Each structure stands twice: as C-alpha cells, then as structure tokens.
C-alpha cells in the first residue's frame, strides 16, 4: 500500500518527559486522518515533528517516499495550522495570506480571493485580523495552511473554541477540500464525536504513545451494535450462521463470535444452534459508544 506519510518510531523528549514515544503511523493520499487523544497526549508534539517545526529526539518519518534530509524537497507540500492560528493582527486577512504567498513563491495573487472564499472570509475586506472572531481567525489559519496548494494539510485542534455553526462550517470546508482537491488532512482533536463525522482513519494516542491505528470501518465495527455469541464449538457455529444466511460476523477468539446483522434474531440463532447440538454459553446484544471505546482503550474518562 502506498503511504504518503509514514512515521517510524517518532519520539520527542523534553528533559525527562517523553512527549511522544515511538509513534508509528501511516497516512495514505486522500485520507482524513484523525489523531485522537486527551489534552497533553502528545498529538501536537507529533504534528510539530511532521510539520518540520520540531526535530524528533529519535525516529524519523518519510514523506512522499523521501526520508532524512531528502524530505526538505517536499516539505513545501505540507500546510500547517498548529495550535492557535499565527497571524499578524494589524494586517487584513488578504495581507496575511499575501505574506505567505510571497514566502512560498506563489506569484498569482488571484489565489488569495479564492482561498478567502473557500474558508468563508471573502467579505472581510480590509478589516484588521485582530478584530476577527475566534472562528474567523481559525478559518484564516486554515486558509494560510492551504497556500501553495499543499497535498497534506495538518490541522491541530481546528475546532477548538468554535460554536456549533463554526464547527459545522470547518467540517464542510475540510470535506469539500478533501473530495474536490484530494487533499489529505491530518487532524487532531480531543472531541471524538466531531472527528468521527469526517475522519477516514484514526490513531489513538495516550500518554505519548500510539495505542491503536484503525480505519473508520474498523472503528465503526468496534463501536457498532452487535451480538456477542459464546458457544462450545466456534467452527460449527460459523457453518450454522452461514446456513442461516448470516455473513457479517467475526470470530473474536476460541469461543466468541460477533454478529453484525439480524440483531433481533438472537432467539432464532440459539434455537438453530441447539438443534445442531451446539451449546450456547452466552448471547447478548452489545453496543459500545465511540467514547466508551476510547475510554476502555485508554483506561479512563478524562478529557477526550
């Protein structure tokens, strides 16, 4: 599988504190990759290393196939919004974008009105950025990250402090850019519910370590409603399920099968198993919410 970004045991140590501990993630072109973790989990540290703002203490990452110092050739293909948007408050949104265009060697200044339109700031004119609302500043930060048509856009907590409408607008912008321009997004957030609405892949980070990397399908599967069935013969159980026309199931361990369809047919399933001499040890319908799943993984119910 072709990954455009692969981190290999990225580690960052501040004094005695390991802010990121051997984190290895893989991102494909077109992904909306969500980094989940509570405040201080190490998300920003990881993103800063990937953005080139911070040097790893250990490990490395490859970008578009380039490793080590060779990466410098493609670092311009990354756009970043790390923590609060970095903007000159005395300048207008246009001027802030123009500065980055000049730095990135973008000569066609017609891109600026387009970028402002994309993030919904087309009507701000000469208004000083210092007078913008938090949401407007955040959107300008995204526009700055989009200067130079990057292939990867890194957004660190882009919805922090936004009202529900602002969150929805940012989400729509990201989805639009991802679909229309095939831009890969790496987004960190501690608001799971919001991230789950757009992300295609997830990495769960806790205490500086990567706990799990999974696709949206895998996460939904883990969090979706399902029948958990424990029997004395798993292999025979599978044959019976197939005969019943149940194909969406997964063998979890030696005696457990998870069934993802016909959730109301647990009675029929146990009857059929009994008729075929398979003893049902336990059958129940379970439903784990995204947050519960996260808390079970990280062992707590803190800030995420």
């Amino acid at each position: 599988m072709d990954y455009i970004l692969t981190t290999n045991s990225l580690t960052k140590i501040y004094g005695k504190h390991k802010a990121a501990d051997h984190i290895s993630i893989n991102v494909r072109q077109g992904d909306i990759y969500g980094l989940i973790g509570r405040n201080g989990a190490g998300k920003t540290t990881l993103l800063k290393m990937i953005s080139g703002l911070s040097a790893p203490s250990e490990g490395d990452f490859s970008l578009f196939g380039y490793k080590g110092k060779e990466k410098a050739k493609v670092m311009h293909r990354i756009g970043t919004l790390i923590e609060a948007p970095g903007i000159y408050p005395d300048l207008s949104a246009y001027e802030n974008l123009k500065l980055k265009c000049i730095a990135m060697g973008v000569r066609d200044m017609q891109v600026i009105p387009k970028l402002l339109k994309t993030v919904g700031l087309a009507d701000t004119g000469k208004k000083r950025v210092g007078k913008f609302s938090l949401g407007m500043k955040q959107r300008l930060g995204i526009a700055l990250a989009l200067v130079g048509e990057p292939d990867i856009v890194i957004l660190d907590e882009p919805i922090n402090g936004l009202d529900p409408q602002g969150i929805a607008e940012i989400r729509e912008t990201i989805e639009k850019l991802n679909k229309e321009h095939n831009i890969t997004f790496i987004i960190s957030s501690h608001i799971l519910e919001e991230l789950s609405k757009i992300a295609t892949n997830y990495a769960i980070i806790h205490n500086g370590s990567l706990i799990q990397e999974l696709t949206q399908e895998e996460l939904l599967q883990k969090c979706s409603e399902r029948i958990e069935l424990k029997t004395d013969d798993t292999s025979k159980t599978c044959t019976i399920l197939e005969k019943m026309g149940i194909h969406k199931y997964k063998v979890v361990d030696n005696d457990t099968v998870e069934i993802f369809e016909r959730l109301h047919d647990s009675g029929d399933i146990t009857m059929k198993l009994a008729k075929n001499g398979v003893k049902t040890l336990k059958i129940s319908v379970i439903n784990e919410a995204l947050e519960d799943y996260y808390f079970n993984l990280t062992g707590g119910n803190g800030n995420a």
Partner: protein
Amino acid sequence: MLNLIKMDLHRLFRIKSFWIMILTTLILTVFGTYMTYFGSTNYEPIVSSNNMALEAPDIQIGFGVMIKPEWANKVDFNELFNSNIQGNMLAILCAIFTVIFVNGDQKNGYIKNIAGQFSNKGMLVLSKLVAVAVQLLVIFIVFSVTSALIGKICWGDKLVFDAVSDFVKLFSIQYLLHFSFASLISAFTIILKSGSLAMTFGIFSAAGITSLLHSLIDILLHKCNVSKEFSISNYFIENCIKTFSIDLNSDDFTRIVIVGIAVFIASTFASMLIMQKRDIR
C-alpha cells in the same frame, strides 16, 4: 531565501512600527538639531573654581546632543551629523525597531506557518536582517536629510557641506556600526526568546549605561597588570558608534570597522545556529 526576503520587505512597509520609527526619527532629528543650534548659540563652557575649562566626561549616559564652541560661527555638516549620531538617538531607535520586527512573527506565531517549509531555518534570521538593514537605511536617509534641512534653517549660510567624500565615509561606517548593533540586538531577541529583555538591553547599552560595566572591567583588567592604554569599551559596538569620527587615526578607524564586521558576523552566525537547532514553539 529570496522569497523570505521579499516577504519580510513586504511586511516591513506594512507594519505600523516602521512608519512610527520614521516619524520618531524625523521629530527627534528636528528636536536634536535645534537643541544643538540652541546650545551652540548660547554656549558657555563649564569652568572650575580656578577658571579652567573642564573637559567633558568620557562616559555619556542617555540621549543628548554634543556642541562645539566654534559652531557659533561655522558648522561643518559632517560634524553636526556625527555629533547627532553620537547622541545615541539612532542607536536607541535601532534597538527598539529591531526587537519589534525580529520578535514580531515569534510573538504572534506567524513563523509556524512558514518555518517548516524551509530546511534551513537560519534563513528566517537573515531575511529579517535584510529588512532591518533597509529600515535602518531609510532612517539614516531621513536623519541626514532632516539634519541638513533643519541645520540650514537654523544656521543658514554658516552650515557648510565641504567634504562629500568624508560624509559618504561617515555615513557608511556609522550605518555599518548601527547595523552590527541591530544584528546583536536581533541575536539577543532570538537567544533570550524575550523581546522585552532584549529591548531593555538594547536601550541600556545604546544609552551608555553598559559603559559603567566596561569601566569596572577596565579597572579589574588594569589591576591584573593589563596595560592602562587598553580599554574593553573600545571593542563594544555601542562605544564604537559613540567614538567614531572622520578624524580618527588609521589604527582606531580599522579597529572600529573590524569590531563592526566581527559583531555582525558573530551575532548573525549565533542567531542562525540557534534558530536552526531550536524547535519552533
């Protein structure tokens, strides 16, 4: 690199502090030149109790003007220019502007938008120094033109522009020294990660407060059998700004130019190295 320079130059002409500094230079030059004129036409030497004229002290602290008694009859523009510069005004403005400009993108976080894209982050320092050099050049031109105009208004025909080549030399060396001073302040801003500390240091040293420290070091060195002729302050950029004049002997002239170049190279190298090694926060 060229793009970064273009960006910083674009920013330079759009920030308030650039125009405020020029306006301040204009006002202070008018004020300083007029004070010089006022002092020269009302000159009274400081005398001791036995009626001997006292020499001016070696250490000058604060912002001020220097007056020569002969200026009541004839004023050489080069002397007026240099005496106004030696009054610390440009060095203080230079320190304030450098800190504001160099610290600007760190303070508001704009640096995070661009730093990752450049493999050599030291270039971010160089591009800012180019912009500071341009700002300083504009300030020097405003200062020279205003000094000439106000001088002409005050002294009339008594103000003479005799040696253009000397003026070019004076302008160039003082510009070099001020730029070196700016690069030193820039290095302090980057290394200390504190605009207020760097600005305090810049204003203190430009105003001559650090010369008290130099005197202490000199006393210690002289106690350690170092020649009485040696003075550490000769190797500090702020003192070179104050002591440089076109009449200096070639040894002192060379020393001052070398100090100017050495300070620029050392402070630029140090700040580029720190910027390259340090994480952007």
